[in-house]
């Protein structure tokens, strides 16, 4: 399969997703990237099948007293691309802390 060449911001977003930041606003806060970069990048990553999105269940959202979020999850090829991006941008791993539940 052809390896994905990611831009620095896309690699940063993918890295954030792989570390457990799973929805748009969360990723934006963790990476410090502007919203105009994060949301279209998430769409592109989804189109390229590096991430998949799913809606949080209404029951979980109601229990937390907030609207259901659109969660992004990194795919198998996304993990490979994130790994390749970390090798290409070695500082990426140090930029983001792992998310604590």
């Amino acid at each position, binding site marked *: 399969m052809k390896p994905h060449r990611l831009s620095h911001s896309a690699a940063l977003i993918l890295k954030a997703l792989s570390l457990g930041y799973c929805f748009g*606003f969360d990723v934006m806060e963790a990476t410090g990237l502007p919203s105009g970069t994060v*949301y279209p990048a998430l*769409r592109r990553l989804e189109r390229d099948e590096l991430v998949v999105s799913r809606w949080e269940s209404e029951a979980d959202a109601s229990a937390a007293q907030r*609207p259901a979020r*659109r969660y992004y999850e990194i795919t198998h090829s996304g993990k490979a691309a994130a790994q390749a991006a970390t090798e290409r941008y070695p500082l990426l791993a140090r930029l983001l802390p792992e998310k604590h539940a």
Partner: protein
Amino acid sequence: MIPELPSPLRRADRVLLAATQWLTPRCERENWVRGWQAELWDREHRRKQDGTPGLLSGVIQDALWLRGDSVRQALAGTPFLCIALLVSLLLMATVPAVIAAGSLHGFLVIAAGSVVRVAIEASLVAFVSLAAGVTSLEQNLSGMQRLRLKARVFFFAKMVLVLLLAWMMSTDVTWPIRPFIPLTTLVLQSLLFVLLGLLGSRWSSLDSALRCQHCLCSLASPARVGRPSWNFLEFTGAELECKQGHGHLSIPEIETSWCQASEWVAAD
């Protein structure tokens, strides 16, 4: 159906969503609004003293991305896009010639003087190109009467545009030396035109051969049909599908007595 929020969004956010949702394609709108309601709600309830990042640019750019992507998907591989690109290239190639001629009128005068010569050369190029269309792919197209009227019009339009583009490019390239060696320039331009015209018209017929014969969109998902197919179907080659599901094109790897040319298989 969008579920109700636990508490309403700020008025400014509601106005923003209401105004921007019209940028998104209709089929994506409900999901888009739902997703952004959740993001804006989250932003509002996590607001910190030091300021929370704004989402205005994200809302607009996300909506524009969805719109752009839907247009890209709708146009990709269509005959309209092909013709539009050729027309754009032709216009771009015309600009240097108009600049070199000094004015549009000057260019038109020179172009009008070359019409007969260009028509003769273009007819010869088109004839040679079509007569030389002997690949298994083009044999599929060789009987033009088999093509629908829409396909014939598209093929003809593409050929005309490609030949005009070839002539314009040959003019652009030879224009700087025209004042010094006019006769040699004429010969050089004719040779260049024939060469570019042949390449262009060969591309044109191969492109038509690799399009769906129903909707004229480019065929996609090339798949090589290998050994298992040879065993069961006595066919090795490649298959390309129409994205709209109108059929597929089988291209044999080796010409055989029972499968000499590519074959368009329409879906039932």
